[in-house]
């Protein structure tokens, strides 16, 4: 005995689903995906010199890598040599977004190493060459990255401007013609070696590590013609011990230190006759420098 309508009935009542095309977002690009793929390769594979040569020789690679647009990142892969070039030009906002997105690699053993910082520096430099300026990097929620904003080079008539925002830690190496401002909570681990013609506006942050202006290696040059501005009394005390350590042949300091008062005016810190005797710096200071706190 036949029950129900059978397969014919089922087919007759079946209304097929409307077929939707694969959704595609109009006008958008996937530039970040490619950039992250390259970054991942950088993290996984050392450039040729890493781990073999010393700091100066590393700098021989790092400086042109950041400053020359088509300078390649050469690696020894199991499949042979490979060179990565970073010709991407991102807007300042995109660079910050890319930097934020890098934290998905924060568990990678090489994340803290120089490669992350160098890549961000390179993107900033590319962007600056393309006419962008005023870069902001949000450090909140990002693990410390070494060499962030290092080897950057600006122009005297239009210095490269970078704002580091939020609560984070960073250091900086060998920059020229740059204005750097830090937000209140940024921890500056203070390596400003080999920098020239820069203003480091440290705001009211407390410098945990000392600012270094003297090079580690005698081959490198000292920081030169840089101004350090702070409105924090502790930072000021810390800076004054170090900023004037770099001297020219006539034993005159090569850099400048300012204390910013609450009304915004800058008080230059001059060592006068005392600078030759660092032990007396405090005595000199107590007349000129009155903490705002």
């Amino acid at each position, binding site marked *: 005995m036949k029950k129900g309508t059978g397969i014919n009935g089922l087919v007759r009542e079946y209304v097929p689903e409307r077929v*939707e095309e694969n959704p595609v977002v*109009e006008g958008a690009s996937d530039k970040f995906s490619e950039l*992250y793929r390259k970054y991942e390769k950088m993290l996984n594979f050392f450039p040729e010199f890493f781990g073999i040569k010393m700091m100066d020789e590393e700098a021989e690679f790092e400086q042109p890598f950041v400053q020359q647009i088509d300078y390649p990142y050469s690696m020894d892969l199991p499949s042979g040599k490979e060179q990565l070039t970073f010709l991407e030009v991102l807007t300042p906002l995109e660079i910050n*977004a890319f930097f934020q997105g890098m934290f998905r690699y924060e568990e990678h053993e090489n994340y803290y190493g120089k490669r992350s910082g160098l890549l961000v520096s390179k993107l900033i430099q590319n962007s600056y060459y393309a006419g962008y300026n005023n870069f902001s990097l*949000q450090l909140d929620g990002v693990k410390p990255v070494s060499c962030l904003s290092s080897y950057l080079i600006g122009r005297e008539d239009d210095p490269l401007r970078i704002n580091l925002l939020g609560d984070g830690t960073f250091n900086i190496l060998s920059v020229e013609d740059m204005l750097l401002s830090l937000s209140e909570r940024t921890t500056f681990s203070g390596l400003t070696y080999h920098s020239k013609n820069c203003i480091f506006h440290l705001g009211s942050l407390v410098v945990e590590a000392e600012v270094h202006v003297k090079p580690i290696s005698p081959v490198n040059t000292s920081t030169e013609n840089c101004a350090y501005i702070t409105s924090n009394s502790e930072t000021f005390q810390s800076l004054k011990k170090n900023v004037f350590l770099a001297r020219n042949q006539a034993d005159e300091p090569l850099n400048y230190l300012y204390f910013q008062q609450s009304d915004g005016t800058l008080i230059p810190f001059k060592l006068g006759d005392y600078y030759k005797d660092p032990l007396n710096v405090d005595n000199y200071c107590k007349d000129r420098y009155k903490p705002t706190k």
Partner: protein
Amino acid sequence: MTTFNWEEIAQKETPQIFKDFYSPLIPAEVTLEENLEDAKCDTAFFDFHTNRTSISKKFLERLCLEGRLEPEIAFGGILKHEVGHYSYYPRECSTLMFFGHLAESNFKEYADGVLAYWCDLMNNLTQVLMKHKGKDVRAVYRGLARLMEQDKLSAVEQAVFKLLKIAPEEVQRTMRDYSVDKLLIAYYQRQGNEDLGVRLEKDGYLAQKFKEMMSINYLTKEDEIVNFIQFGNIVADILKQRDAKLPKLKIKVRYGGSGEDGELWKILRRFIKPIFEDAPELKDFPKDKLEEGLNDIIRKWGKSRYERIKDYVERKTGKEFDKPRGTSRGQSHSQQAGTEEGIQLQFHDGQIPYYERLAGTYGVSIFKKPLMVDVTDNYPEGKKEFTIGDPIRTLDPFSTGGIILPGITKRHQLKAGKRKDRLYKVPDAWLRLDTSGSMKHPTKGSLAVLCSSILANGYWHNGASIGVDNFSVDMATLFPTRDLNAVYSLLCAYWGGGTWLNINKIKKHLQKLAATPEDARQLDIIYTTEDDYKKYAASLPPEEQKEFMEKNLEVKMTRQLKETYDKIDNILITDGWLANPEEVIDHFNSVAQLTRNFVFITGSPKNYERWKKLNLPNTEVYPADKKEDFIGLTLGIIDSLAPPDNKPVSLFYQ
């Protein structure tokens, strides 16, 4: 009284809409309310507790009458948007947790706004791009655009603004010029390729932001974080501009004296909230889903990131997760313990919840092995009259010649008795965890502690007891116990000195366990120091002392001791940099006849290769360099456990 019969429309439209979502496993029902003024939002929302959508009839009426939509379309579009929050985005509360914490660190006061708009965008975009299924959603946004266009300030609102000394026209102009909703509808209009009635002023502020939005491919999953930051920058900038134009409004809304329940706040709120305002928030999720969400997060991200996100979730929900707890066996160990001089063992009980949760997301398969165990059997002892209701299997059919006679037929009385037998069981585990200075600290997310926790969990869930030796130069020992808290406590402790595994002490502990198993299992943590070792050696007779110091102490294998060794899986978790590798390997070789050995080498692929090449009998070596190494972990399939030459061809014909 409503113009349309919404119940009838809901009954008719709901099944097809759920079918469009491929019939998700949630009730295909909609709760229709006259208005939702007392609820989470006054338009519509998806309740993640009940998995049901609630829609305000008042809002539907507005969409139809003022937004000029067909009632079926209005209902369908809203329901699709709401169910989309369940099916498309955020779908999992872990998504909200992650992007919420990201928003908080990047967009500060605008974090909630950015997150709400992001959830709506990601939900809608998927639907808007669908030519057929997205028709209703696009229509709803066309209706919303009309509502925004017709929006006028009520007399009360005008009065309030006059009191605040804000020109009502300025408010309206600012709301129009700096409207995220308008920007998003314009974006849907472009992506859906359908006129939704939004026109952005050419070269205006919103047109510029629209260009920025168009440069982002929101559907690229791997760029989701970058996309979110870029989108957040756009939204936060608009909201910032709006607040800059209406500073008084911002101050009054945020810090109004009447508080969040006050009338003034209610009036002004509509000027700062999204038009839909239905985006899910973490507090909408029940605790079990939040726990699941945190499990997803802990698996995906590292320790510090997980802790940041957990902190964010706790602040947002007001609930506490991963509560620290003391050990249940009432140990009163302080933060430090150990030798009087030299390195101290640091306890980090605060880290237990982290490792417990993370270990709980992994499984480990442990093969059983034949163990000599006590088995309880029933045997007949004496007889009694069989009465109705007694189990028939106890009946003695021979007592009355096969006939059951009430009051005369007997039944067997059963008594329980114990006997020794070999049964397939998971043995107890003795974890020997290296916490020397070369090992990662538990507070920094140690893979060795994670590995030990996974193993402890696995054995514990199989009914086995777990013993722990936490060693560096000194050693802290916990005899096998079912008290998992005590196990975790010792696993999270850290010495931080050199690495020397005291094999003689291990042998002594096993002897103790064999001699007085019940007493040993009740013991608190035992500390063994280098001094103890020397003192013990000095106390021995000269000939034994020589044997002891030269480390060729032979253990007299009694039956009990053999059984004890047999019942224990010997597990070593180390980075491989041991000061006495020969001694350890020798020990592994000597116990291999009875015990299964497992060695986990963490953080050193070279050492893993070295240990692997040793081919120790009955010993398996595992790498433990990354979390992924613990996926699909299986312990105990070792050929040498039952070597082929000793194994009978068929157990049946033995």
